[in-house]
Protein backbone atom coordinates (compact mmCIF):
# COMPACT_ATOMS: atom_id res chain seq x y z
CA UNK A 1 0.00 0.00 0.00
CA UNK A 2 2.83 2.36 0.88
CA UNK A 3 4.57 1.87 -2.45
CA UNK A 4 1.22 2.10 -4.23
CA UNK A 5 0.31 5.29 -2.42
CA UNK A 6 3.74 6.67 -3.21
CA UNK A 7 3.32 5.84 -6.89
CA UNK A 8 -0.09 7.52 -6.98
CA UNK A 9 1.20 10.58 -5.14
CA UNK A 10 4.23 10.86 -7.44
CA UNK A 11 1.96 10.46 -10.48
CA UNK A 12 -0.36 13.14 -9.14
CA UNK A 13 2.58 15.50 -8.57
CA UNK A 14 3.94 14.86 -12.07
CA UNK A 15 0.59 15.73 -13.63
CA UNK A 16 0.32 18.85 -11.47
CA UNK A 17 3.85 19.87 -12.48
CA UNK A 18 3.19 19.10 -16.17
CA UNK A 19 -0.01 21.12 -16.17
CA UNK A 20 1.62 24.02 -14.36
CA UNK A 21 4.48 24.19 -16.91
CA UNK A 22 2.11 23.63 -19.75
CA UNK A 23 -0.18 26.45 -18.62
CA UNK A 24 2.80 28.78 -19.11
CA UNK A 25 3.81 27.15 -22.38
CA UNK A 26 0.30 27.44 -23.78
CA UNK A 27 0.51 31.23 -23.47
CA UNK A 28 3.90 31.34 -25.24
CA UNK A 29 2.56 29.09 -27.99
CA UNK A 30 -0.53 31.25 -28.33
CA UNK A 31 1.55 34.39 -28.93
CA UNK A 32 3.89 32.47 -31.26
CA UNK A 33 1.06 31.18 -33.46
CA UNK A 34 -0.60 34.60 -33.41
CA UNK A 35 2.62 36.26 -34.66
CA UNK A 36 2.93 33.65 -37.41
CA UNK A 37 -0.67 34.16 -38.49
CA UNK A 38 -0.24 37.96 -38.58
CA UNK A 39 3.00 37.48 -40.58
CA UNK A 40 1.14 35.25 -43.05
CA UNK A 41 -1.68 37.75 -43.50
CA UNK A 42 0.80 40.64 -43.90
CA UNK A 43 2.75 38.60 -46.42
CA UNK A 44 -0.47 37.95 -48.41
CA UNK A 45 -1.31 41.65 -48.40
CA UNK A 46 2.21 42.75 -49.42
CA UNK A 47 2.24 40.19 -52.23
CA UNK A 48 -1.24 41.42 -53.22
CA UNK A 49 -2.35 37.83 -53.31
CA UNK A 50 -6.11 37.48 -53.47
CA UNK A 51 -6.35 33.74 -52.83
CA UNK A 52 -4.88 32.55 -49.53
CA UNK A 53 -1.31 31.38 -49.77
CA UNK A 54 -0.37 27.95 -48.33
CA UNK A 55 1.45 29.88 -45.61
CA UNK A 56 -1.78 31.60 -44.63
CA UNK A 57 -3.70 28.30 -44.64
CA UNK A 58 -1.15 26.56 -42.44
CA UNK A 59 -1.09 29.59 -40.11
CA UNK A 60 -4.86 29.48 -39.70
CA UNK A 61 -4.87 25.67 -39.28
CA UNK A 62 -2.10 25.90 -36.68
CA UNK A 63 -4.01 28.64 -34.91
CA UNK A 64 -7.16 26.46 -34.83
CA UNK A 65 -5.16 23.45 -33.56
CA UNK A 66 -3.60 25.65 -30.90
CA UNK A 67 -6.98 26.88 -29.70
CA UNK A 68 -8.34 23.30 -29.72
CA UNK A 69 -5.37 22.07 -27.65
CA UNK A 70 -5.68 25.01 -25.28
CA UNK A 71 -9.36 24.18 -24.81
CA UNK A 72 -8.68 20.44 -24.39
CA UNK A 73 -6.10 21.05 -21.65
CA UNK A 74 -8.58 23.09 -19.68
CA UNK A 75 -11.52 20.80 -20.35
CA UNK A 76 -9.78 17.51 -19.59
CA UNK A 77 -7.16 18.60 -17.06
CA UNK A 78 -8.49 16.12 -14.47
CA UNK A 79 -7.95 13.26 -16.86
CA UNK A 80 -5.33 10.59 -16.63
CA UNK A 81 -1.63 11.10 -16.94
CA UNK A 82 -1.71 9.18 -20.24
CA UNK A 83 -4.25 11.58 -21.73
CA UNK A 84 -2.30 14.68 -20.63
CA UNK A 85 0.85 13.16 -22.15
CA UNK A 86 -1.04 12.39 -25.36
CA UNK A 87 -2.17 16.03 -25.66
CA UNK A 88 1.36 17.27 -25.03
CA UNK A 89 2.84 14.94 -27.65
CA UNK A 90 0.21 16.16 -30.10
CA UNK A 91 1.15 19.73 -29.29
CA UNK A 92 4.86 19.05 -29.87
CA UNK A 93 4.17 17.30 -33.18
CA UNK A 94 2.04 20.25 -34.32
CA UNK A 95 4.92 22.61 -33.52
CA UNK A 96 7.40 20.43 -35.45
CA UNK A 97 5.09 20.26 -38.50
CA UNK A 98 4.55 24.01 -38.38
CA UNK A 99 8.28 24.77 -38.10
CA UNK A 100 9.01 22.38 -40.98
CA UNK A 101 6.40 24.02 -43.19
CA UNK A 102 7.85 27.47 -42.46
CA UNK A 103 11.34 26.16 -43.38
CA UNK A 104 9.94 24.71 -46.61
CA UNK A 105 8.06 27.85 -47.62
CA UNK A 106 10.85 30.25 -46.60
CA UNK A 107 13.80 29.01 -48.63
CA UNK A 108 14.80 25.66 -47.09
CA UNK A 109 18.43 25.70 -45.96
CA UNK A 110 18.50 29.48 -46.42
CA UNK A 111 15.65 29.99 -43.96
CA UNK A 112 16.32 31.54 -40.57
CA UNK A 113 13.17 29.94 -39.19
CA UNK A 114 15.17 27.02 -37.71
CA UNK A 115 14.82 28.77 -34.35
CA UNK A 116 11.16 27.70 -34.41
CA UNK A 117 12.25 24.14 -33.50
CA UNK A 118 13.30 25.48 -30.11
CA UNK A 119 9.66 25.46 -28.97
CA UNK A 120 8.97 21.71 -29.41
CA UNK A 121 12.48 20.80 -28.21
CA UNK A 122 12.26 22.85 -25.02
CA UNK A 123 8.62 22.05 -24.29
CA UNK A 124 9.38 18.30 -24.48
CA UNK A 125 11.04 18.74 -21.05
CA UNK A 126 7.55 18.95 -19.56
CA UNK A 127 6.96 15.29 -20.45
CA UNK A 128 9.60 14.10 -17.93
CA UNK A 129 10.25 11.14 -20.18
CA UNK A 130 13.53 10.31 -21.90
CA UNK A 131 11.95 8.51 -24.85
CA UNK A 132 9.54 11.37 -25.55
CA UNK A 133 12.25 14.05 -25.21
CA UNK A 134 14.36 12.25 -27.80
CA UNK A 135 11.28 11.59 -29.94
CA UNK A 136 10.81 15.39 -30.12
CA UNK A 137 14.47 15.72 -31.22
CA UNK A 138 14.12 12.91 -33.75
CA UNK A 139 10.95 14.31 -35.35
CA UNK A 140 12.52 17.80 -35.44
CA UNK A 141 15.61 16.41 -37.26
CA UNK A 142 13.42 14.48 -39.73
CA UNK A 143 11.10 17.49 -40.22
CA UNK A 144 14.02 19.84 -40.87
CA UNK A 145 15.93 17.52 -43.24
CA UNK A 146 12.82 16.54 -45.22
CA UNK A 147 11.58 20.13 -45.63
CA UNK A 148 15.05 21.34 -46.76
CA UNK A 149 15.40 18.47 -49.27
CA UNK A 150 11.85 18.94 -50.56
CA UNK A 151 12.37 22.68 -50.96
CA UNK A 152 15.65 22.08 -52.77
CA UNK A 153 14.16 19.50 -55.16
CA UNK A 154 11.09 21.65 -55.97
CA UNK A 155 12.95 24.98 -56.39
CA UNK A 156 16.33 23.83 -57.70
CA UNK A 157 18.66 26.80 -57.44
CA UNK A 158 22.16 25.41 -57.39
CA UNK A 159 24.12 23.09 -55.10
CA UNK A 160 22.63 21.97 -51.82
CA UNK A 161 24.39 23.48 -48.78
CA UNK A 162 25.15 20.41 -46.66
CA UNK A 163 26.49 22.30 -43.63
CA UNK A 164 23.05 23.34 -42.22
CA UNK A 165 21.86 19.75 -42.71
CA UNK A 166 24.59 18.61 -40.33
CA UNK A 167 24.79 21.60 -38.00
CA UNK A 168 21.10 21.98 -37.12
CA UNK A 169 20.26 18.28 -36.50
CA UNK A 170 23.31 18.02 -34.22
CA UNK A 171 22.15 21.19 -32.41
CA UNK A 172 18.69 19.66 -31.93
CA UNK A 173 20.20 16.54 -30.36
CA UNK A 174 22.46 18.61 -28.07
CA UNK A 175 19.49 20.75 -26.93
CA UNK A 176 17.52 17.55 -26.24
CA UNK A 177 20.32 16.06 -24.16
CA UNK A 178 20.47 19.26 -22.05
CA UNK A 179 16.67 19.29 -21.78
CA UNK A 180 16.67 15.64 -20.72
CA UNK A 181 19.19 16.18 -17.91
CA UNK A 182 17.29 19.23 -16.63
CA UNK A 183 14.01 17.28 -16.69
CA UNK A 184 15.64 14.29 -15.00
CA UNK A 185 16.90 16.41 -12.15
CA UNK A 186 13.46 17.95 -11.66
CA UNK A 187 11.69 14.59 -11.87
CA UNK A 188 13.89 13.08 -9.13
CA UNK A 189 13.03 16.11 -6.94
CA UNK A 190 9.32 15.48 -7.53
CA UNK A 191 9.65 11.75 -6.79
CA UNK A 192 11.57 12.50 -3.61
CA UNK A 193 8.95 15.03 -2.45
CA UNK A 194 6.15 12.55 -3.18
CA UNK A 195 7.93 9.87 -1.13
CA UNK A 196 8.39 12.25 1.81
CA UNK A 197 4.75 13.29 1.67
CA UNK A 198 3.50 9.69 1.71
CA UNK A 199 5.81 8.91 4.63
CA UNK A 200 4.42 11.97 6.47
CA UNK A 201 0.87 10.69 5.85
CA UNK A 202 1.77 7.23 7.08
CA UNK A 203 3.48 8.68 10.17
CA UNK A 204 0.40 10.77 10.79
CA UNK A 205 -1.79 7.64 10.79
CA UNK A 206 0.59 5.79 13.10
CA UNK A 207 0.71 8.73 15.50
CA UNK A 208 -3.06 8.69 16.11
CA UNK A 209 -3.11 5.87 18.65
CA UNK A 210 0.07 7.19 20.28
CA UNK A 211 -1.38 10.69 20.57
CA UNK A 212 -4.61 9.34 22.03
CA UNK A 213 -2.72 7.18 24.55
CA UNK A 214 -0.64 10.17 25.65
CA UNK A 215 -3.80 12.25 25.99
CA UNK A 216 -5.41 9.58 28.20
CA UNK A 217 -2.26 9.37 30.34
CA UNK A 218 -2.26 13.16 30.62
CA UNK A 219 -5.91 13.11 31.72
CA UNK A 220 -5.21 10.43 34.34
CA UNK A 221 -2.25 12.38 35.73
CA UNK A 222 -3.96 15.76 35.85
CA UNK A 223 -7.60 15.06 36.66
CA UNK A 224 -8.34 15.31 40.37
CA UNK A 225 -10.79 13.00 42.17
CA UNK A 226 -11.41 10.66 39.28
CA UNK A 227 -14.66 8.78 39.77
CA UNK A 228 -14.93 5.07 39.00
CA UNK A 229 -17.25 5.89 36.11
CA UNK A 230 -14.70 8.30 34.60
CA UNK A 231 -11.92 5.78 35.13
CA UNK A 232 -13.91 3.13 33.26
CA UNK A 233 -14.56 5.60 30.47
CA UNK A 234 -10.82 6.21 30.12
CA UNK A 235 -10.07 2.47 30.24
CA UNK A 236 -12.64 1.97 27.45
CA UNK A 237 -10.82 4.63 25.45
CA UNK A 238 -7.49 2.84 25.93
CA UNK A 239 -9.09 -0.41 24.72
CA UNK A 240 -10.52 1.36 21.70
CA UNK A 241 -7.23 3.13 20.95
CA UNK A 242 -5.34 -0.17 21.06
CA UNK A 243 -7.95 -1.82 18.86
CA UNK A 244 -7.55 1.02 16.32
CA UNK A 245 -3.76 0.73 16.54
CA UNK A 246 -3.79 -3.02 15.90
CA UNK A 247 -6.30 -2.55 13.11
CA UNK A 248 -4.07 0.05 11.48
CA UNK A 249 -0.97 -2.17 11.69
CA UNK A 250 -2.96 -5.14 10.32
CA UNK A 251 -4.27 -2.96 7.52
CA UNK A 252 -0.80 -1.82 6.58
CA UNK A 253 0.53 -5.39 6.62
CA UNK A 254 -2.43 -6.77 4.65
CA UNK A 255 -2.35 -3.86 2.23
CA UNK A 256 1.34 -4.42 1.54
CA UNK A 257 0.91 -8.18 1.27
CA UNK A 258 0.46 -9.97 -2.02
CA UNK A 259 -0.83 -13.17 -0.43
CA UNK A 260 -4.33 -13.28 -1.84
CA UNK A 261 -3.52 -16.18 -4.17
CA UNK A 262 -1.89 -18.20 -1.41
CA UNK A 263 -3.32 -19.95 1.70
CA UNK A 264 -6.69 -20.30 0.01
CA UNK A 265 -9.36 -22.04 2.04
CA UNK A 266 -12.96 -22.98 1.54
CA UNK A 267 -15.03 -21.05 4.09
CA UNK A 268 -18.69 -20.54 4.82
CA UNK A 269 -19.22 -16.81 4.30
CA UNK A 270 -22.24 -16.76 6.65
CA UNK A 271 -20.47 -18.05 9.77
CA UNK A 272 -17.30 -16.20 8.91
CA UNK A 273 -19.06 -12.82 8.62
CA UNK A 274 -21.19 -13.45 11.72
CA UNK A 275 -18.07 -14.01 13.85
CA UNK A 276 -16.45 -10.80 12.60
CA UNK A 277 -19.65 -8.77 13.17
CA UNK A 278 -19.85 -10.11 16.75
CA UNK A 279 -16.25 -9.04 17.38
CA UNK A 280 -17.09 -5.50 16.24
CA UNK A 281 -20.18 -5.24 18.43
CA UNK A 282 -18.08 -6.37 21.41
CA UNK A 283 -15.35 -3.83 20.66
CA UNK A 284 -17.82 -0.98 20.30
CA UNK A 285 -19.97 -2.31 23.16
CA UNK A 286 -23.00 -2.28 20.87
CA UNK A 287 -24.26 -5.84 21.02
CA UNK A 288 -27.86 -4.59 20.76
CA UNK A 289 -27.23 -2.63 17.57
CA UNK A 290 -26.28 -5.53 15.28
CA UNK A 291 -28.93 -6.91 12.94
CA UNK A 292 -27.55 -9.97 11.21
CA UNK A 293 -29.50 -11.62 8.43
CA UNK A 294 -28.43 -14.50 6.22
CA UNK A 295 -29.94 -16.58 3.47
CA UNK A 296 -30.23 -19.62 5.78
CA UNK A 297 -28.07 -21.63 3.43
CA UNK A 298 -24.39 -22.34 3.37
CA UNK A 299 -22.56 -19.95 1.07
CA UNK A 300 -19.05 -21.15 0.38
CA UNK A 301 -16.22 -19.09 -1.05
CA UNK A 302 -12.55 -19.89 -1.61
CA UNK A 303 -10.32 -17.10 -0.34
CA UNK A 304 -7.38 -16.23 1.89
CA UNK A 305 -9.37 -16.04 5.17
CA UNK A 306 -6.91 -13.71 6.93
CA UNK A 307 -7.20 -11.14 4.17
CA UNK A 308 -10.96 -11.41 3.79
CA UNK A 309 -11.28 -11.04 7.56
CA UNK A 310 -9.42 -7.73 7.36
CA UNK A 311 -11.64 -6.54 4.50
CA UNK A 312 -14.95 -7.44 6.22
CA UNK A 313 -13.70 -6.12 9.55
CA UNK A 314 -12.88 -2.77 7.98
CA UNK A 315 -16.32 -2.42 6.38
CA UNK A 316 -18.26 -3.40 9.55
CA UNK A 317 -15.88 -1.41 11.74
CA UNK A 318 -16.50 1.64 9.56
CA UNK A 319 -20.27 1.27 10.04
CA UNK A 320 -19.95 1.07 13.83
CA UNK A 321 -17.39 3.85 13.99
CA UNK A 322 -19.56 6.30 12.09
CA UNK A 323 -22.92 5.55 13.69
CA UNK A 324 -24.13 6.37 17.21
CA UNK A 325 -25.06 4.05 20.04
CA UNK A 326 -28.63 2.87 19.53
CA UNK A 327 -28.45 3.21 15.73
CA UNK A 328 -28.72 -0.23 14.09
CA UNK A 329 -26.06 -1.66 11.79
CA UNK A 330 -27.44 -4.23 9.35
CA UNK A 331 -25.24 -7.05 8.04
CA UNK A 332 -26.66 -9.30 5.32
CA UNK A 333 -25.01 -12.32 3.74
CA UNK A 334 -26.86 -13.44 0.64
CA UNK A 335 -26.06 -15.53 -2.41
CA UNK A 336 -26.97 -16.26 -5.98
CA UNK A 337 -25.85 -19.28 -7.99
CA UNK A 338 -22.76 -17.24 -9.04
CA UNK A 339 -21.96 -14.82 -6.23
CA UNK A 340 -21.92 -14.29 -2.50
CA UNK A 341 -22.67 -10.77 -1.23
CA UNK A 342 -21.78 -9.40 2.19
CA UNK A 343 -23.66 -6.12 2.71
CA UNK A 344 -23.29 -3.68 5.59
CA UNK A 345 -25.84 -0.89 6.00
CA UNK A 346 -25.93 1.97 8.50
CA UNK A 347 -27.55 5.40 8.75
CA UNK A 348 -25.27 8.01 7.17
CA UNK A 349 -25.48 11.68 6.29
CA UNK A 350 -26.08 12.75 2.70
CA UNK A 351 -22.95 12.49 0.58
CA UNK A 352 -21.41 9.64 2.61
CA UNK A 353 -21.74 7.21 -0.31
CA UNK A 354 -19.97 9.62 -2.68
CA UNK A 355 -17.17 10.01 -0.18
CA UNK A 356 -16.69 6.25 0.13
CA UNK A 357 -16.92 5.78 -3.63
CA UNK A 358 -14.22 8.40 -4.07
CA UNK A 359 -11.94 6.57 -1.63
CA UNK A 360 -12.51 3.30 -3.52
CA UNK A 361 -12.10 4.84 -6.97
CA UNK A 362 -8.79 6.35 -5.82
CA UNK A 363 -7.46 2.80 -6.22
CA UNK A 364 -8.15 2.92 -9.96
CA UNK A 365 -6.94 6.39 -10.82
CA UNK A 366 -4.45 8.90 -9.54
CA UNK A 367 -7.08 11.23 -8.19
CA UNK A 368 -6.34 10.81 -4.51
CA UNK A 369 -4.16 8.44 -2.51
CA UNK A 370 -6.00 6.52 0.23
CA UNK A 371 -3.93 7.74 3.17
CA UNK A 372 -4.98 11.32 2.57
CA UNK A 373 -8.54 10.61 3.65
CA UNK A 374 -9.10 10.51 7.36
CA UNK A 375 -11.05 7.86 9.23
CA UNK A 376 -13.06 6.22 6.50
CA UNK A 377 -10.11 6.38 4.13
CA UNK A 378 -7.60 3.72 5.11
CA UNK A 379 -10.00 0.94 6.16
CA UNK A 380 -12.29 1.13 3.16
CA UNK A 381 -9.39 1.63 0.75
CA UNK A 382 -7.66 -1.50 2.13
CA UNK A 383 -10.94 -3.46 2.02
CA UNK A 384 -11.46 -2.46 -1.60
CA UNK A 385 -7.88 -3.38 -2.50
CA UNK A 386 -8.18 -6.83 -0.89
CA UNK A 387 -11.56 -7.57 -2.48
CA UNK A 388 -10.38 -6.45 -5.92
CA UNK A 389 -7.21 -8.55 -5.56
CA UNK A 390 -9.53 -11.52 -4.91
CA UNK A 391 -11.25 -10.77 -8.25
CA UNK A 392 -14.29 -9.59 -6.32
CA UNK A 393 -16.02 -6.26 -6.31
CA UNK A 394 -17.00 -3.66 -3.75
CA UNK A 395 -20.00 -1.41 -4.29
CA UNK A 396 -21.38 1.56 -2.37
CA UNK A 397 -24.95 2.84 -2.54
CA UNK A 398 -27.11 5.26 -0.57
CA UNK A 399 -30.87 5.14 -0.09
CA UNK A 400 -33.23 6.77 2.43
CA UNK A 401 -30.41 8.15 4.58
CA UNK A 402 -28.53 4.84 4.81
CA UNK A 403 -25.29 3.75 3.17
CA UNK A 404 -24.67 0.18 2.07
CA UNK A 405 -21.22 -1.21 1.34
CA UNK A 406 -21.43 -4.52 -0.49
CA UNK A 407 -18.59 -7.01 -0.94
CA UNK A 408 -19.26 -9.38 -3.83
CA UNK A 409 -17.20 -12.57 -4.22
CA UNK A 410 -17.45 -15.55 -6.50
CA UNK A 411 -19.46 -18.41 -4.95
CA UNK A 412 -17.86 -21.81 -4.70
CA UNK A 413 -20.40 -24.40 -5.80
CA UNK A 414 -19.90 -27.63 -3.86
Amino acid at each position, binding site marked *: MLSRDYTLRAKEQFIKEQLSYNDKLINVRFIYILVLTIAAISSSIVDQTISPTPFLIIGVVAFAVNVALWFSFRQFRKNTNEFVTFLMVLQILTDVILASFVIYSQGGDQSRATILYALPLLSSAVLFNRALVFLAAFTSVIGYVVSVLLEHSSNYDGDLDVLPLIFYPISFVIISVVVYFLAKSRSSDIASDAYKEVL*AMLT*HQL*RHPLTAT*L*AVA*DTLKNEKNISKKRLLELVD*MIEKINYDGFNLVNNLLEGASDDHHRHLQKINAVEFTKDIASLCTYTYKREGDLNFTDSKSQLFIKVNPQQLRTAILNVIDNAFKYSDHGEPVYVYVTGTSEDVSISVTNASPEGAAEKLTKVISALDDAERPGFESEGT*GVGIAIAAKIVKDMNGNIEVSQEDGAVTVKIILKRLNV
Partner: protein
Amino acid sequence: MKKILMVEDIPIIQKLYKDKLSEAFVVDVVPNGKAALDALAEEEYDFILLDMLLPEINGEEFLAEYQKLDSNAKVIVLSDFDYPQTVERAKSLGVTDYLLKVENEPSKLLEKLKSYD
Protein backbone atom coordinates in the same frame (compact mmCIF):
# COMPACT_ATOMS: atom_id res chain seq x y z
CA MET B 1 -14.92 32.83 28.86
CA LYS B 2 -13.10 32.76 25.56
CA LYS B 3 -14.37 30.48 22.84
CA ILE B 4 -12.53 27.78 20.90
CA LEU B 5 -13.65 26.07 17.72
CA MET B 6 -11.95 22.69 17.50
CA VAL B 7 -11.83 21.17 14.01
CA GLU B 8 -11.01 17.49 14.54
CA ASP B 9 -12.44 14.29 13.07
CA ILE B 10 -11.25 11.63 15.51
CA PRO B 11 -13.91 11.21 18.25
CA ILE B 12 -11.51 10.14 21.05
CA ILE B 13 -9.16 13.05 20.39
CA GLN B 14 -12.16 15.41 20.26
CA LYS B 15 -13.37 14.19 23.66
CA LEU B 16 -10.03 14.13 25.48
CA TYR B 17 -9.03 17.64 24.37
CA LYS B 18 -12.49 19.11 24.83
CA ASP B 19 -12.72 17.76 28.40
CA LYS B 20 -9.47 19.45 29.39
CA LEU B 21 -9.82 22.72 27.46
CA SER B 22 -13.35 23.18 28.85
CA GLU B 23 -11.74 23.99 32.22
CA ALA B 24 -10.84 27.45 30.88
CA PHE B 25 -12.64 27.86 27.56
CA VAL B 26 -15.97 27.29 25.90
CA VAL B 27 -15.22 24.60 23.33
CA ASP B 28 -17.26 23.73 20.23
CA VAL B 29 -16.16 20.76 18.14
CA VAL B 30 -16.77 20.14 14.44
CA PRO B 31 -15.48 17.19 12.37
CA ASN B 32 -14.31 18.91 9.17
CA GLY B 33 -13.42 22.17 7.45
CA LYS B 34 -16.85 22.60 5.88
CA ALA B 35 -18.60 22.36 9.25
CA ALA B 36 -16.02 24.80 10.65
CA LEU B 37 -16.84 27.40 7.98
CA ASP B 38 -20.54 26.93 8.75
CA ALA B 39 -19.88 27.39 12.48
CA LEU B 40 -17.84 30.56 11.83
CA ALA B 41 -20.76 32.02 9.89
CA GLU B 42 -22.92 31.62 13.00
CA GLU B 43 -20.54 32.32 15.89
CA GLU B 44 -17.44 34.34 16.78
CA TYR B 45 -14.47 32.48 18.23
CA ASP B 46 -11.20 33.54 19.84
CA PHE B 47 -9.25 30.47 18.74
CA ILE B 48 -9.58 27.85 16.02
CA LEU B 49 -7.78 24.57 16.72
CA LEU B 50 -7.34 23.02 13.32
CA ASP B 51 -6.33 19.51 12.26
CA MET B 52 -4.78 19.44 8.77
CA LEU B 53 -5.94 16.15 7.25
CA LEU B 54 -9.71 16.29 7.41
CA PRO B 55 -12.57 14.93 5.31
CA GLU B 56 -14.69 17.23 3.12
CA ILE B 57 -12.58 20.42 3.31
CA ASN B 58 -9.07 19.77 4.65
CA GLY B 59 -6.95 22.12 6.76
CA GLU B 60 -5.22 23.89 3.86
CA GLU B 61 -8.47 24.41 1.97
CA PHE B 62 -10.07 25.70 5.17
CA LEU B 63 -7.23 28.22 5.69
CA ALA B 64 -7.60 29.53 2.14
CA GLU B 65 -11.34 30.05 2.71
CA TYR B 66 -10.82 31.45 6.21
CA GLN B 67 -8.64 34.25 4.83
CA LYS B 68 -11.67 35.57 2.97
CA LEU B 69 -13.74 35.77 6.19
CA ASP B 70 -13.95 38.72 8.52
CA SER B 71 -12.81 36.85 11.62
CA ASN B 72 -10.28 37.75 14.30
CA ALA B 73 -9.87 34.25 15.67
CA LYS B 74 -6.30 33.02 16.02
CA VAL B 75 -5.81 29.81 14.07
CA ILE B 76 -3.61 27.23 15.76
CA VAL B 77 -2.92 24.04 13.87
CA LEU B 78 -3.06 20.94 16.08
CA SER B 79 -2.15 18.01 13.89
CA ASP B 80 0.09 14.98 13.65
CA PHE B 81 0.86 15.72 10.02
CA ASP B 82 4.18 17.52 9.83
CA TYR B 83 5.14 17.36 6.17
CA PRO B 84 7.45 20.41 5.85
CA GLN B 85 5.73 21.88 2.76
CA THR B 86 2.32 21.65 4.46
CA VAL B 87 3.73 23.36 7.57
CA GLU B 88 5.19 26.13 5.39
CA ARG B 89 1.98 26.59 3.42
CA ALA B 90 -0.08 26.72 6.63
CA LYS B 91 2.24 29.38 8.06
CA SER B 92 2.04 31.39 4.85
CA LEU B 93 -1.75 31.22 5.18
CA GLY B 94 -1.51 33.03 8.50
CA VAL B 95 -1.65 30.40 11.27
CA THR B 96 -0.46 31.62 14.68
CA ASP B 97 1.24 28.33 15.55
CA TYR B 98 1.67 24.82 14.14
CA LEU B 99 1.58 22.31 17.01
CA LEU B 100 1.96 18.54 16.95
CA LYS B 101 -0.62 16.64 18.99
CA VAL B 102 1.96 14.08 20.03
CA GLU B 103 3.98 16.88 21.73
CA ASN B 104 0.96 18.75 23.10
CA GLU B 105 -1.15 16.68 25.43
CA PRO B 106 -4.41 18.31 26.59
CA SER B 107 -2.97 19.91 29.77
CA LYS B 108 0.07 21.28 27.90
CA LEU B 109 -2.16 22.68 25.18
CA LEU B 110 -4.39 24.33 27.78
CA GLU B 111 -1.41 26.20 29.24
CA LYS B 112 -0.26 27.24 25.75
CA LEU B 113 -3.68 28.58 24.83
CA LYS B 114 -3.81 30.59 28.05
CA SER B 115 -0.41 32.09 27.16
CA TYR B 116 -1.75 33.33 23.79
CA ASP B 117 -4.13 35.69 25.66
